[in-house]
């Protein structure tokens, strides 16, 4: 059932335009001076119960991230430091953006047998769907680094290779920086 939306008719004063602009500026200016007053007062230890509107001072301050947020990928390591990945190509197969390229090699240890000689993720293509993490049978790829900033001046720079992905192989600790600093 469609909802009928009544169009609000503007009054004559509103249609005159100038008055409404002045009212808008007054509102913004009011907020500005109120916030400035509250923040200055809090700076001197006053008005603790009043809260000025807050802005995260990015990049010094960061928003808290939900633990399940999908962020930059990392490859985990075995106990001996070798990558856990066995180059089964499940992630490459499931990837809807075709951003993963793996080249497999023969591992000298027949119990491991297969390992990635190359593992590239083109973050310029990645859609951060997390399917690679879901598909991995070895828990070798995760998206829990909490890193959201990866920029580059070139397309090639957006391709993360095995070394770059292994560099963050440690389980990330809740980062001090990423905690909210409330003013």
């Amino acid at each position, binding site marked *: 059932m469609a909802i009928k939306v009544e169009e609000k008719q503007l009054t004559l004063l509103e249609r005159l335009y100038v008055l409404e602009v002045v009212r808008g500026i007054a509102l913004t200016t009011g907020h500005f001076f109120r916030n400035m007053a509250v923040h200055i007062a809090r700076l001197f230890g006053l008005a603790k119960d009043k809260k000025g509107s807050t802005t995260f001072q990015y990049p010094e301050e960061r928003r808290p991230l939900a633990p399940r947020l999908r962020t930059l990928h990392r490859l985990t390591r075995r106990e001996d430091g070798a990558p856990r990945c*066995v180059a089964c*190509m499940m992630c*490459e197969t499931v990837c809807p953006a075709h951003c993963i390229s793996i080249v*497999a090699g023969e591992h000298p240890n*027949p119990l491991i047998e*297969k390992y990635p000689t190359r593992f590239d993720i083109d973050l310029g293509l990645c859609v951060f769907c997390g399917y690679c993490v879901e598909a991995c049978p070895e828990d070798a790829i995760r998206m829990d680094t909490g890193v959201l900033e990866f920029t580059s001046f070139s397309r090639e720079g957006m391709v993360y290779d095995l070394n770059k992905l292994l560099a963050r192989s440690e389980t990330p600790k809740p980062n001090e920086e990423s905690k909210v600093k409330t003013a």
Partner: protein
Amino acid sequence: MPTLTIDGQEVTVDAGTTVIQAAEQIGINIPRYCYHPGLSLAGRCRMCLVEIETFPNLQIACYTRAQDEMVVSTTSERVLSARQSMLEFLLSNHPLDCPVCDQSGECDLQNFYMDHGQYQSRFLENKVKKKKAFPIGPHVILDQERCILCTRCVRFTEEVSKSNELGVFNRGSRSVIDLYPTKSLDNPYSGNVIDICPVGALTEREFRFKCRVWYLASQESICTGCSRGCNISLDYNGSRRAYKAGGRRVMRIKPRYNPDINKWWICDEGRFGYGFIDTDRIETPMQRTTSDLEPSDWDPALARVAETVKAAYSEKGANGVGVIVSPQLSNEELLACRELFVEKMKLTNVAALNPWEEPGEADDFLRNADRNPNTKGVEDLGYSGDAKAVLEKAAEGEIEVLIIFRHNLADGEAGKLLEKAKFVVYVGTNWNATAERAHVVLPGATHAEKDGTFTNFEGRVQRFKQALLPIGDSRNDSQIISEMAAKLGYSLPASADEIFEAWKGISLDELSGSGSSVDPDTAVQA
């Protein structure tokens, strides 16, 4: 002729047919591991158990002969539970390392487990450890843990290759497939054990880890390794882009069943002889300007060929131009060459065979000494005389322009003659000494990159289909000939299908899958 009922469907089969074959005739596929139509019956895997009325116990379909009034069920509850139990047995010591296993994606353990699996493992004991991933020959790697002891490979070495390298050793759960002492699986047909292994126990060293099988696309083709014309499937990078495989497009070759030629088998030379499709290819037309060969466009290269040919033609007539076609070319290309060079230009110096070519190894199974796929086609299409006479005339200066297709004529005696030739045009796929010595090089397409037919040594005309686009700037040979003809003022069809239809009266698609009849008097049977 017993008539039996399988799952409610009646079927009449020849005497001696087994139940598994009878079921196949009506399209019922009974799961099996050890049964292979090309090998003797072993009855080892017990996967093909079926329920037959009047038999108290389940019977293996691969060993039970069909009898009159037999009533077989392949889907009863007893059968399904037996399959589930058999899979549980077979998998009890299986390492389940599908992520690293090359077979996964085309593994019968995986396939049948999807339909008949237990899913919840009840196995609490420790799995028996066996030897993993070690080479047993130049092409094959064995993983004893993955093996389910169907003995297909053992029977293959006993019955087909007759080389007896493999056997079953030890007893019970410690049984393993292994090489007999001092032996190595290096017979010329060793690669076939990889195909017949239903699990990932035997894997191909060349193909290992290069590509997962679900990325592969497949196209029907004909092996170009010798004049036998074995039917093959070209497996190439399909959904996965070739750059991810280092530019390699054709990943492996598998035999394709043809009861009249190669049955299920293929020799190792054919199986691993696909490297030329992606390596060392001539990718652009080349022209010799001063002393070096330099890349050129098609138009100027073809124009230069046409000009030189015309000049030689007007100076010396039909003797001024020599052509050496090749038994590597398809029938359609040979027909196009015949039409242009013999029928239209009436050239007198047209040859096909290379008398210096060294014969390959031959045996009484598949391999022929003649290393060309289409020598019979060359003969059938009326080419006679060998390259030597033409080369000699070119060396003496009688032939002004020499057009060479595919052959390498730059070694030994041929090389000395070729050096003296005035103007050489090379049409081929891969770089060789002849191409490097030519004045104009025109890149052709390999059999993976075009449509056409080869005539095998028995006279069977067989089709190969295009799997890939011609590499780089290269072109289908019949197109090259047609364009060359256009520059010379003749008109020839460029597509293989048109040429074939004009030749045999049927289209390529109508040619039977197993090739034309061998009898040369009868027309090609669709």
